[in-house]
Each structure stands twice: as structure tokens, then as C-alpha cells.
């Protein structure tokens, strides 16, 4: 379980995240919504150590993530699908997936894991030898997701997985998130597509210019008047 307390992050003079606290319980889907520049990506980046925190604490299953070296975090069972996918463009689809298993000491499960991912994303199986850089945006998103799954995570941070995807792919991606959830994986989901995000999440936080302004049951927030006006374009 992930527990963030009083976290603040700044880029030089810009305070991107101001004293936020949030938690994600095992097996939950928690959604983090907010306008552009609210600090969502920054929050996720701080959790996995890509950006240093100014103050606060991030506890994950007994590990103080802010004190850990960032490349070790994945070994605790946390995977992060970054904003903008960040696939390794000059590696093939399969190599990308194999990179996902980099942190595993033992790679005997590799072929089973690959089969699992290919089962989830049959399209990737067809394209396993293609360089990831030449894939379409949606296919790259699948690679990013599959790659994260390869590290046997129990918790996945997802940053705008639906960005730039066709409506059909968006539906597919959300279906997969639900399926992961059903398998017991914990998900912290950042989304612009607030409607979809809130409809599959258990709980949600609303981030506004670096601060959490609302939190609660996702379905309730979905019907909250303020949220509807600000994020759902009602």
C-alpha cells in the first residue's frame, strides 16, 4: 500500500506540488484528476524517484521511497507507465518487453510473462519484431503497459494512458485496466479523461495547482457539481 504524506516538490522557483497527502490501498484503483499543470505527473515522478521531493514522505509497503535509489523502486513491486509512453524506440517490441523484466533476478518466467502480455495485447504479438519507434501511438501505449507488467508489479502508476488514442483504443485500454484490477493489481491512475477515469476508479483525488482540493468516492465525485463543471465539461 502506498501512503504519501505532506509531499512538496518544486522545480527551482516553481512549486509544482504543495504539501499533498494521499494513499492507495491494496487492490484499489485510485484516480488522480486535475487540469493541465496541476502537478499530477510531478506527483508520479516523485513517487518513483525521477524527480526529487522537497519535503514529505512516500511510504510503499514499508519502504520509504524518497530514501531509496530510484532504480530500486521497481523491485518493490511498483511499476510506472510514464506520460508520453517512453518506449525504447530503437528496440523491438519484444526487446522492450524484456527490458520490463530487467529488475527480476530470475528470468525463468520470461516466456510465460511474454505469453501473458501477448495474450492481453494480441496486436503486440503480431508486431513483436517491429521497432517500437515505428509503431502507432496506440500500439506504443500497449508496449508501455505490457512492459510495466513484465516486472511482476503489484502496483502500477499510469500517467494518461489514453492520451492521443482513438476512441476505440481508449475503450480497450480502460478494459485492460479493469482486468488488471480484477487480478488484484493496485492502480494509481492519472487521467485527463476524467469521466472514464472516475467511472472505473474506487476513489479519486482532485489536484488543483499543486494542492489536493477534493477527495472521495469516485462515483460521488463523478456526480459532484464542481467536478463536473471543472473537469467533465458538463
Amino acid at each position, binding site marked *: 500500500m502506498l501512503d504519501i504524506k505532506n509531499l512538496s516538490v518544486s522545480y527551482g522557483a516553481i512549486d509544482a506540488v504543495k504539501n499533498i497527502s494521499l494513499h492507495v490501498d491494496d487492490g484499489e484503483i485510485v484516480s488522480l484528476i486535475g487540469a*493541465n499543470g496541476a502537478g499530477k505527473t510531478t506527483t508520479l515522478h516523485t513517487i518513483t524517484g525521477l524527480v526529487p521531493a522537497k519535503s514529505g514522505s512516500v511510504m510503499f509497503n514499508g519502504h520509504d521511497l524518497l530514501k531509496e535509489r530510484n532504480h530500486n523502486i521497481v523491485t518493490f513491486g511498483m511499476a510506472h507507465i510514464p506520460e508520453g509512453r517512453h518506449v525504447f524506440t530503437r528496440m523491438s517490441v519484444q526487446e522492450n518487453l524484456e527490458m520490463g523484466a530487467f529488475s527480476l533476478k530470475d528470468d525463468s518466467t520470461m516466456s510465460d510473462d511474454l505469453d501473458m502480455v501477448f495474450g492481453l495485447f494480441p496486436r503486440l504479438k503480431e508486431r513483436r519484431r517491429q521497432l517500437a519507434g515505428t509503431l*502507432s501511438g496506440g*500500439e506504443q501505449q500497449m508496449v508501455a503497459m505490457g512492459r510495466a507488467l513484465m516486472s511482476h508489479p503489484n502496483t502500477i502508476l499510469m500517467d494518461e494512458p489514453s*492520451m*492521443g*488514442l*482513438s476512441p476505440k483504443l481508449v475503450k480497450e485500454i480502460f478494459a*485492460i485496466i479493469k482486468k488488471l484490477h480484477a487480478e488484484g493489481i493496485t492502480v494509481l491512475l492519472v487521467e*485527463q479523461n476524467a469521466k472514464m477515469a472516475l467511472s472505473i476508479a474506487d476513489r479519486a483525488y482532485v489536484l488543483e495547482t499543486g494542492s489536493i482540493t477534493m477527495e472521495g468516492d469516485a462515483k460521488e465525485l463523478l456526480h459532484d457539481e464542481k467536478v463536473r463543471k471543472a473537469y467533465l*465539461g458538463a
Partner: protein
Amino acid sequence: MSEPILRAEHLGITFGGLKAVSDFNMTIGKGELVGLIGPNGAGKTTVFNLLTGVYQPTEGEFFLDGKRMNGKKTYQVVRAGIARTFQNIRLFKQMTVEENVLVAFNESFTYKMGGAIFRTPRFWKQESDMHAKAIDLLRIFNLEGLANTEAANLPYGAQRKLEIARALATGMKLLLLDEPAAGMNPTETEDLLNCINTIRDRFGIAILLIEHDMSLVMNVCQRIQVLDYGRTIASGLPEEIANNPQVISAYLGSDDDTDSEEEN
């Protein structure tokens, strides 16, 4: 009907064996707003790249106001009147917001190097005229307060708007917008929709819009053309497109198949 702003005939391009776009036909009249949609990798951005001279078509031709544009370099196409925004935002990051717009006004300046070096009255006059025009333009997008901010420091939404403002400053007849609402939430998208309507009314230009956000596309486009694997699979009025079974299966996805997708 008089000569349309844009007429594309059988445009196509191949990347090392891959036909990214083929037999692309389209006409856009003055003041029209046309949508271009299709699955990821269908070739939409590639169409924009063809229309702006980033890539040269391997087949077909296209005309702006009846003038053939094949073989023209990007800057020539832009000067002739086609401007665009980019799917991955491309601003002049280390320049201020106002400078970003002024760069696009470059062709409207007539002072020459000598004028610049000797700071002639013409230099001063044009610089101050352009400054005024730039601020006017920024005002449409509520960006005038940020005129002296470095573009890199703008919030994402503002960056998207600045890209549009910059494109407008080239003084084009046809504006190509590539996923302007990507990464925006529905409320911000609505704000953008208003902006698009404003500029179309105010400048009387034609717009070609790529977008995956159906609420935007269906609301603002007069006609929509759908690409899949580089080919046009449908084109028509928004309602027709929304109900076209081929479009639904390739692009929109049916509302009830979300669960079946993952199983196959």
C-alpha cells in the same frame, strides 16, 4: 462554386514500402471546417505533412486557391497560405510568447537588413505595429498577460493555444490543427472549441482538424473524412460518420464491445 481553398487529388506517399497515405482526395471551401479522423497510425498527421511540404507526395497533387503546391518547401507553402500546428507541441521554447508570434509575422515585415542595422524610422514603425498586432492576436487566446513569459514556462493548455496563435500570425487561408485538444480535459476542450469558432468567424479562414476527442469533432466540424491504413473509408456529415459501421468498427468502437475486445 468558385475555386476551393484546398483541392487535393489522389495524394499519396510511401515510406520504404509502407503506403502511409494513398489516393487522398479532399476539397475545402472558404470558411469551411473539416474534420480528419481515423485510428492511430492511419496517416492523418502524414496528410498534414504532405499539405505543408514536410514530405513530398509520391503521387497526386494538391492546390491552394488553384495554385499547384507540389514540390514547394514548407516555408513556401506557409507563405502561400497553409499554416499548421503540431501533434507534439513545437514552440520556440527559449523565446517569449510575443516573440513566438512575431516570428510568424516575419513575412509581414518589409524592412531589410539595412533598416535593421541603422534603425530606420521604418524599422521602428513596423516593430511597434507588429507588437500591437501580436498583442491583439494573443488577446483572442487570453494570452496577452503572458506576452513576456518564456514559452517553455507556459502551462500545457496555453502552449497549445500559443501554437494556434502563431499559426494565425502567418496570415494563412487554411489552418491545419493536429490534435489541439490532446491532453486537455473536457472543460479545457470546450474552451478550445470556443476559440476555434471565434477565429473561424473572425478571420474567415478554412480549417482542417485532426482530433480524437469526438465531442469536439462532432460539435464543430461541418464535414468529416475518415482514414484507415492511409485510405479514406468514409466521408460525410458528422451524423453519417458517427453511424457508419465501418467507422465504428475501425475507429469509434461500439459501446458494448469493451469487454469483448480484451478477450480476443
